[in-house]
Protein backbone atom coordinates (compact mmCIF):
# COMPACT_ATOMS: atom_id res chain seq x y z
CA UNK A 1 0.00 0.00 0.00
CA UNK A 2 2.65 2.45 1.03
CA UNK A 3 4.62 1.43 -2.00
CA UNK A 4 1.71 2.16 -4.30
CA UNK A 5 1.21 5.55 -2.70
CA UNK A 6 4.83 6.45 -3.13
CA UNK A 7 4.61 5.34 -6.69
CA UNK A 8 1.53 7.48 -7.28
CA UNK A 9 3.23 10.52 -5.81
CA UNK A 10 6.32 9.86 -7.89
CA UNK A 11 4.20 9.58 -11.03
CA UNK A 12 2.42 12.82 -10.16
CA UNK A 13 5.72 14.60 -9.61
CA UNK A 14 7.06 13.38 -12.91
CA UNK A 15 3.87 14.50 -14.62
CA UNK A 16 4.16 17.93 -12.98
CA UNK A 17 7.75 18.22 -13.99
CA UNK A 18 6.64 17.32 -17.49
CA UNK A 19 4.11 20.12 -17.38
CA UNK A 20 6.65 22.77 -16.40
CA UNK A 21 8.91 21.72 -19.25
CA UNK A 22 8.61 23.81 -22.41
CA UNK A 23 5.28 23.19 -24.13
CA UNK A 24 5.14 23.03 -27.93
CA UNK A 25 5.09 26.70 -29.11
CA UNK A 26 2.22 26.14 -31.53
CA UNK A 27 0.80 29.65 -31.25
CA UNK A 28 4.25 31.21 -31.64
CA UNK A 29 4.90 29.11 -34.76
CA UNK A 30 1.63 30.35 -36.21
CA UNK A 31 2.51 33.96 -35.42
CA UNK A 32 5.94 33.59 -36.97
CA UNK A 33 4.65 31.96 -40.13
CA UNK A 34 2.12 34.76 -40.41
CA UNK A 35 4.77 37.45 -39.93
CA UNK A 36 7.03 35.87 -42.55
CA UNK A 37 4.15 35.55 -45.02
CA UNK A 38 3.17 39.17 -44.44
CA UNK A 39 6.71 40.42 -44.95
CA UNK A 40 6.83 38.47 -48.21
CA UNK A 41 3.48 39.93 -49.23
CA UNK A 42 4.79 43.49 -49.00
CA UNK A 43 7.81 42.50 -51.08
CA UNK A 44 10.54 41.54 -48.62
CA UNK A 45 12.96 39.15 -50.32
CA UNK A 46 16.51 37.89 -49.92
CA UNK A 47 17.77 41.42 -50.66
CA UNK A 48 16.74 42.27 -47.09
CA UNK A 49 19.19 40.67 -44.63
CA UNK A 50 16.53 40.49 -41.89
CA UNK A 51 14.30 38.50 -44.24
CA UNK A 52 17.04 35.95 -44.86
CA UNK A 53 17.45 35.59 -41.10
CA UNK A 54 13.70 35.20 -40.62
CA UNK A 55 13.47 32.41 -43.18
CA UNK A 56 16.52 30.60 -41.83
CA UNK A 57 15.30 30.78 -38.25
CA UNK A 58 11.78 29.73 -39.17
CA UNK A 59 13.23 26.68 -40.91
CA UNK A 60 15.32 25.94 -37.80
CA UNK A 61 12.26 26.32 -35.58
CA UNK A 62 10.28 23.95 -37.76
CA UNK A 63 13.10 21.41 -37.60
CA UNK A 64 13.25 21.76 -33.81
CA UNK A 65 9.49 21.32 -33.58
CA UNK A 66 9.81 18.00 -35.40
CA UNK A 67 12.54 16.99 -33.00
CA UNK A 68 10.30 18.07 -30.09
CA UNK A 69 13.04 20.45 -28.98
CA UNK A 70 10.42 23.01 -28.02
CA UNK A 71 12.63 25.43 -26.13
CA UNK A 72 14.85 25.99 -29.13
CA UNK A 73 11.87 25.99 -31.45
CA UNK A 74 10.27 28.79 -29.45
CA UNK A 75 13.44 30.87 -29.35
CA UNK A 76 14.05 30.60 -33.07
CA UNK A 77 10.41 31.25 -33.82
CA UNK A 78 10.35 34.34 -31.60
CA UNK A 79 13.45 35.75 -33.24
CA UNK A 80 12.20 34.89 -36.72
CA UNK A 81 8.94 36.70 -36.05
CA UNK A 82 10.72 39.93 -35.14
CA UNK A 83 13.22 39.53 -37.99
CA UNK A 84 10.28 39.25 -40.38
CA UNK A 85 8.50 42.24 -38.87
CA UNK A 86 11.65 44.32 -39.13
CA UNK A 87 12.13 43.21 -42.74
CA UNK A 88 8.55 44.24 -43.47
CA UNK A 89 9.11 47.60 -41.81
CA UNK A 90 12.27 48.22 -43.81
CA UNK A 91 10.50 47.44 -47.09
CA UNK A 92 7.59 49.75 -46.25
CA UNK A 93 9.94 52.54 -45.18
CA UNK A 94 12.02 52.31 -48.32
CA UNK A 95 8.84 52.35 -50.41
CA UNK A 96 7.63 55.44 -48.61
CA UNK A 97 11.02 57.06 -49.12
CA UNK A 98 10.72 56.45 -52.83
CA UNK A 99 7.24 57.92 -52.84
CA UNK A 100 8.55 60.97 -51.01
CA UNK A 101 11.30 61.38 -53.58
CA UNK A 102 8.71 61.12 -56.38
CA UNK A 103 6.53 63.72 -54.72
CA UNK A 104 9.47 66.05 -54.26
CA UNK A 105 10.44 65.62 -57.90
CA UNK A 106 6.88 66.38 -58.96
CA UNK A 107 6.80 69.50 -56.82
CA UNK A 108 10.07 70.62 -58.34
CA UNK A 109 8.70 70.10 -61.85
CA UNK A 110 5.53 71.98 -61.00
CA UNK A 111 7.51 74.90 -59.56
CA UNK A 112 9.62 74.94 -62.68
CA UNK A 113 6.61 74.96 -64.96
CA UNK A 114 4.97 77.66 -62.90
CA UNK A 115 8.18 79.67 -63.03
CA UNK A 116 8.22 79.35 -66.81
CA UNK A 117 4.64 80.63 -66.99
CA UNK A 118 5.37 83.89 -65.18
Amino acid at each position, binding site marked *: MIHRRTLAIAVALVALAGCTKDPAPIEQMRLTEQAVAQAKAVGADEQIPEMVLAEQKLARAQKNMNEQDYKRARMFAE*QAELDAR*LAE*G*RVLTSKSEK*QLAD*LNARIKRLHKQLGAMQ
Partner: protein
Amino acid sequence: MNPIAYRLFAAAVATVLLTGCATEPDAEQSLEAARDSFQKVKEDTDALRYAPRDVIRAGDSLSRADRLSTYWGSDADVQHYAYLSQRYSAIAAEHTKLSVNQERQAKLQMDVERLQLNLREAKLLSVQQQGKWLEEQINLAATETNRGLVLTLGDVLFDASDAELKPAANRTLLKLVQFLQLNPRRVVRVEGYTDNRGSREENLELSKARAQAVADTLIDLGIDQSRIQAVGYGADFPVTENASSRGRAQNRRVEIVFSDDQGKLGSDR
Protein backbone atom coordinates in the same frame (compact mmCIF):
# COMPACT_ATOMS: atom_id res chain seq x y z
CA MET B 1 52.04 13.98 -14.03
CA ASN B 2 54.49 13.78 -16.87
CA PRO B 3 55.27 17.04 -18.72
CA ILE B 4 53.21 16.17 -21.78
CA ALA B 5 50.15 15.32 -19.73
CA TYR B 6 50.70 18.50 -17.75
CA ARG B 7 50.82 20.56 -20.90
CA LEU B 8 47.67 18.96 -22.24
CA PHE B 9 45.93 19.69 -19.00
CA ALA B 10 47.06 23.27 -19.05
CA ALA B 11 45.82 23.62 -22.61
CA ALA B 12 42.47 22.11 -21.66
CA VAL B 13 42.13 24.54 -18.74
CA ALA B 14 43.02 27.43 -21.00
CA THR B 15 40.39 26.36 -23.52
CA VAL B 16 37.73 26.12 -20.85
CA LEU B 17 38.68 29.55 -19.54
CA LEU B 18 38.65 30.99 -23.03
CA THR B 19 35.20 29.63 -23.85
CA GLY B 20 34.04 30.88 -20.48
CA CYS B 21 35.41 34.28 -21.36
CA ALA B 22 33.97 34.15 -24.85
CA THR B 23 30.38 33.50 -23.79
CA GLU B 24 30.25 36.00 -20.97
CA PRO B 25 31.22 39.08 -22.98
CA ASP B 26 28.92 37.92 -25.81
CA ALA B 27 25.92 38.09 -23.54
CA GLU B 28 27.17 41.31 -22.01
CA GLN B 29 27.73 42.78 -25.45
CA SER B 30 24.28 41.99 -26.76
CA LEU B 31 22.84 43.35 -23.53
CA GLU B 32 24.82 46.51 -24.01
CA ALA B 33 23.68 46.85 -27.62
CA ALA B 34 20.07 46.27 -26.59
CA ARG B 35 20.40 48.95 -23.91
CA ASP B 36 21.77 51.45 -26.42
CA SER B 37 18.98 50.78 -28.92
CA PHE B 38 16.31 51.01 -26.26
CA GLN B 39 17.77 54.23 -24.91
CA LYS B 40 17.49 55.80 -28.35
CA VAL B 41 13.87 54.86 -29.04
CA LYS B 42 12.88 55.68 -25.48
CA GLU B 43 14.11 59.23 -25.91
CA ASP B 44 12.50 59.60 -29.32
CA THR B 45 9.16 61.34 -28.79
CA ASP B 46 8.06 60.34 -32.30
CA ALA B 47 8.70 56.69 -31.46
CA LEU B 48 6.61 56.98 -28.31
CA ARG B 49 3.85 58.54 -30.35
CA TYR B 50 3.89 56.23 -33.37
CA ALA B 51 5.13 52.89 -32.01
CA PRO B 52 4.45 52.86 -28.27
CA ARG B 53 3.74 49.13 -28.11
CA ASP B 54 7.04 48.14 -29.67
CA VAL B 55 8.92 50.54 -27.41
CA ILE B 56 7.24 48.95 -24.37
CA ARG B 57 8.07 45.47 -25.60
CA ALA B 58 11.68 46.47 -26.19
CA GLY B 59 11.81 47.64 -22.57
CA ASP B 60 10.13 44.47 -21.25
CA SER B 61 12.49 42.17 -23.13
CA LEU B 62 15.44 44.23 -21.99
CA SER B 63 14.53 43.99 -18.30
CA ARG B 64 13.99 40.28 -18.74
CA ALA B 65 17.46 39.94 -20.22
CA ASP B 66 18.85 42.10 -17.41
CA ARG B 67 17.21 39.94 -14.78
CA LEU B 68 18.42 36.72 -16.40
CA SER B 69 21.97 38.04 -16.60
CA THR B 70 22.20 37.84 -12.79
CA TYR B 71 21.73 34.06 -12.97
CA TRP B 72 24.45 31.61 -13.74
CA GLY B 73 24.34 29.69 -16.99
CA SER B 74 21.60 31.71 -18.61
CA ASP B 75 23.77 33.32 -21.31
CA ALA B 76 21.71 31.88 -24.14
CA ASP B 77 18.51 33.31 -22.64
CA VAL B 78 20.14 36.65 -21.95
CA GLN B 79 21.25 36.86 -25.55
CA HIS B 80 17.84 35.77 -26.75
CA TYR B 81 15.95 38.46 -24.86
CA ALA B 82 18.59 41.06 -25.64
CA TYR B 83 18.13 40.15 -29.29
CA LEU B 84 14.35 40.44 -29.05
CA SER B 85 14.69 43.79 -27.27
CA GLN B 86 16.98 45.11 -29.96
CA ARG B 87 14.62 43.94 -32.65
CA TYR B 88 11.67 45.63 -30.96
CA SER B 89 13.67 48.85 -30.77
CA ALA B 90 14.59 48.57 -34.45
CA ILE B 91 10.98 47.83 -35.41
CA ALA B 92 9.82 50.83 -33.37
CA ALA B 93 12.39 53.04 -35.09
CA GLU B 94 11.36 51.72 -38.51
CA HIS B 95 7.66 52.26 -37.88
CA THR B 96 8.39 55.73 -36.61
CA LYS B 97 10.30 56.56 -39.77
CA LEU B 98 7.42 55.17 -41.83
CA SER B 99 4.81 57.21 -39.97
CA VAL B 100 6.85 60.39 -40.20
CA ASN B 101 7.27 59.77 -43.93
CA GLN B 102 3.56 59.16 -44.35
CA GLU B 103 2.71 62.41 -42.62
CA ARG B 104 5.17 64.23 -44.81
CA GLN B 105 3.73 62.50 -47.87
CA ALA B 106 0.23 63.69 -47.02
CA LYS B 107 1.52 67.22 -46.70
CA LEU B 108 3.45 67.07 -49.98
CA GLN B 109 0.42 65.59 -51.72
CA MET B 110 -1.52 68.68 -50.72
CA ASP B 111 1.32 70.86 -52.02
CA VAL B 112 1.18 69.01 -55.33
CA GLU B 113 -2.55 69.57 -55.62
CA ARG B 114 -2.22 73.24 -54.79
CA LEU B 115 0.55 73.69 -57.36
CA GLN B 116 -1.41 71.82 -60.00
CA LEU B 117 -4.33 74.14 -59.42
CA ASN B 118 -2.06 77.16 -59.72
CA LEU B 119 -0.55 75.80 -62.88
CA ARG B 120 -3.94 75.12 -64.43
CA GLU B 121 -5.03 78.64 -63.63
CA ALA B 122 -1.84 80.10 -65.04
CA LYS B 123 -2.21 78.03 -68.20
CA LEU B 124 -5.82 79.06 -68.61
CA LEU B 125 -4.84 82.68 -68.26
CA SER B 126 -2.08 82.28 -70.77
CA VAL B 127 -4.39 80.55 -73.25
CA GLN B 128 -6.84 83.41 -72.91
CA GLN B 129 -4.07 85.91 -73.49
CA GLN B 130 -2.78 83.87 -76.39
CA GLY B 131 -6.28 83.71 -77.83
CA LYS B 132 -6.53 87.48 -77.70
CA TRP B 133 -3.12 87.82 -79.27
CA LEU B 134 -4.03 85.43 -82.09
CA GLU B 135 -7.29 87.19 -82.68
CA GLU B 136 -5.40 90.45 -83.00
CA GLN B 137 -2.96 88.81 -85.39
CA ILE B 138 -5.73 87.36 -87.53
CA ASN B 139 -7.57 90.65 -87.44
CA LEU B 140 -4.42 92.44 -88.57
CA ALA B 141 -3.91 90.04 -91.43
CA ALA B 142 -7.57 89.80 -92.35
CA THR B 143 -9.70 92.50 -93.83
CA GLU B 144 -13.30 93.25 -93.09
CA THR B 145 -15.33 92.88 -96.30
CA ASN B 146 -19.00 92.60 -97.13
CA ARG B 147 -18.46 88.82 -96.98
CA GLY B 148 -17.23 89.07 -93.41
CA LEU B 149 -13.67 88.80 -92.10
CA VAL B 150 -11.39 87.57 -94.90
CA LEU B 151 -7.81 86.30 -94.59
CA THR B 152 -5.87 86.07 -97.83
CA LEU B 153 -3.16 83.45 -98.12
CA GLY B 154 -0.68 85.18 -100.32
CA ASP B 155 0.40 84.46 -103.83
CA VAL B 156 3.60 82.70 -102.80
CA LEU B 157 1.69 79.70 -101.52
CA PHE B 158 1.09 78.04 -104.89
CA ASP B 159 3.14 77.69 -108.03
CA ALA B 160 1.41 78.46 -111.33
CA SER B 161 -1.08 75.73 -112.27
CA ASP B 162 -0.19 73.77 -109.15
CA ALA B 163 -2.50 72.96 -106.25
CA GLU B 164 0.22 71.83 -103.88
CA LEU B 165 0.64 74.05 -100.86
CA LYS B 166 4.17 75.34 -100.38
CA PRO B 167 5.79 75.00 -96.92
CA ALA B 168 5.69 78.77 -96.55
CA ALA B 169 1.97 78.39 -95.82
CA ASN B 170 2.55 76.31 -92.69
CA ARG B 171 3.07 79.14 -90.25
CA THR B 172 -0.04 80.96 -91.27
CA LEU B 173 -2.07 77.77 -91.27
CA LEU B 174 -0.82 76.79 -87.80
CA LYS B 175 -1.88 80.17 -86.52
CA LEU B 176 -5.23 79.66 -88.17
CA VAL B 177 -5.62 76.25 -86.53
CA GLN B 178 -4.82 77.70 -83.12
CA PHE B 179 -7.28 80.47 -83.71
CA LEU B 180 -9.99 77.98 -84.67
CA GLN B 181 -9.22 75.82 -81.66
CA LEU B 182 -9.55 78.79 -79.37
CA ASN B 183 -12.77 79.85 -81.10
CA PRO B 184 -14.63 76.58 -81.40
CA ARG B 185 -17.86 78.16 -82.66
CA ARG B 186 -16.33 79.85 -85.66
CA VAL B 187 -16.41 78.07 -89.02
CA VAL B 188 -14.58 78.99 -92.23
CA ARG B 189 -15.09 78.91 -95.94
CA VAL B 190 -11.91 78.30 -97.89
CA GLU B 191 -12.13 79.91 -101.33
CA GLY B 192 -9.68 79.12 -104.13
CA TYR B 193 -8.83 81.49 -107.01
CA THR B 194 -6.59 81.29 -110.10
CA ASP B 195 -5.19 83.71 -112.64
CA ASN B 196 -6.86 83.95 -116.01
CA ARG B 197 -4.55 81.69 -117.96
CA GLY B 198 -5.89 78.32 -119.07
CA SER B 199 -9.43 77.24 -119.72
CA ARG B 200 -12.36 78.08 -117.49
CA GLU B 201 -12.92 74.42 -116.51
CA GLU B 202 -9.27 73.89 -115.73
CA ASN B 203 -9.19 77.01 -113.59
CA LEU B 204 -12.34 76.09 -111.72
CA GLU B 205 -10.88 72.71 -110.98
CA LEU B 206 -7.50 74.14 -110.00
CA SER B 207 -9.07 76.72 -107.70
CA LYS B 208 -11.19 74.04 -106.06
CA ALA B 209 -8.08 71.85 -105.63
CA ARG B 210 -6.20 74.75 -104.01
CA ALA B 211 -9.01 75.42 -101.57
CA GLN B 212 -9.21 71.72 -100.80
CA ALA B 213 -5.43 71.53 -100.19
CA VAL B 214 -5.76 74.23 -97.55
CA ALA B 215 -8.88 72.63 -96.07
CA ASP B 216 -7.15 69.24 -95.91
CA THR B 217 -4.19 70.74 -94.08
CA LEU B 218 -6.51 72.35 -91.53
CA ILE B 219 -8.29 69.02 -91.06
CA ASP B 220 -4.96 67.22 -90.71
CA LEU B 221 -3.99 69.72 -88.02
CA GLY B 222 -7.06 68.80 -86.03
CA ILE B 223 -9.91 71.02 -87.15
CA ASP B 224 -13.18 69.21 -87.55
CA GLN B 225 -14.21 68.70 -91.16
CA SER B 226 -17.69 70.05 -90.47
CA ARG B 227 -16.26 73.48 -89.72
CA ILE B 228 -14.64 73.88 -93.12
CA GLN B 229 -16.17 74.43 -96.57
CA ALA B 230 -13.95 74.48 -99.65
CA VAL B 231 -15.07 76.19 -102.85
CA GLY B 232 -13.34 77.16 -106.09
CA TYR B 233 -14.13 80.30 -108.12
CA GLY B 234 -11.60 79.87 -110.96
CA ALA B 235 -10.39 83.14 -112.40
CA ASP B 236 -13.44 85.06 -111.17
CA PHE B 237 -13.13 87.92 -108.71
CA PRO B 238 -9.48 88.81 -109.40
CA VAL B 239 -7.94 91.17 -106.84
CA THR B 240 -5.84 92.85 -109.51
CA GLU B 241 -5.20 92.87 -113.27
CA ASN B 242 -3.97 89.70 -114.99
CA ALA B 243 -1.78 91.56 -117.49
CA SER B 244 1.50 91.19 -115.57
CA SER B 245 3.04 88.12 -113.97
CA ARG B 246 2.96 89.98 -110.67
CA GLY B 247 -0.72 90.66 -110.98
CA ARG B 248 -1.37 87.03 -111.92
CA ALA B 249 0.62 85.80 -108.90
CA GLN B 250 -1.57 87.96 -106.67
CA ASN B 251 -4.68 86.53 -108.20
CA ARG B 252 -3.51 82.96 -107.55
CA ARG B 253 -4.66 82.85 -103.98
CA VAL B 254 -6.77 81.26 -101.31
CA GLU B 255 -9.04 83.31 -99.12
CA ILE B 256 -10.32 82.22 -95.76
CA VAL B 257 -13.71 83.68 -94.92
CA PHE B 258 -14.53 83.55 -91.21
CA SER B 259 -17.97 83.20 -89.75
CA ASP B 260 -18.98 85.41 -86.86
CA ASP B 261 -18.45 83.97 -83.40
CA GLN B 262 -21.86 82.32 -83.57
CA GLY B 263 -20.80 80.21 -86.55
CA LYS B 264 -22.75 82.25 -89.13
CA LEU B 265 -20.98 82.58 -92.49
CA GLY B 266 -21.67 85.20 -95.10
CA SER B 267 -23.30 83.85 -98.24
CA ASP B 268 -21.32 82.54 -101.21
CA ARG B 269 -20.26 84.94 -103.91
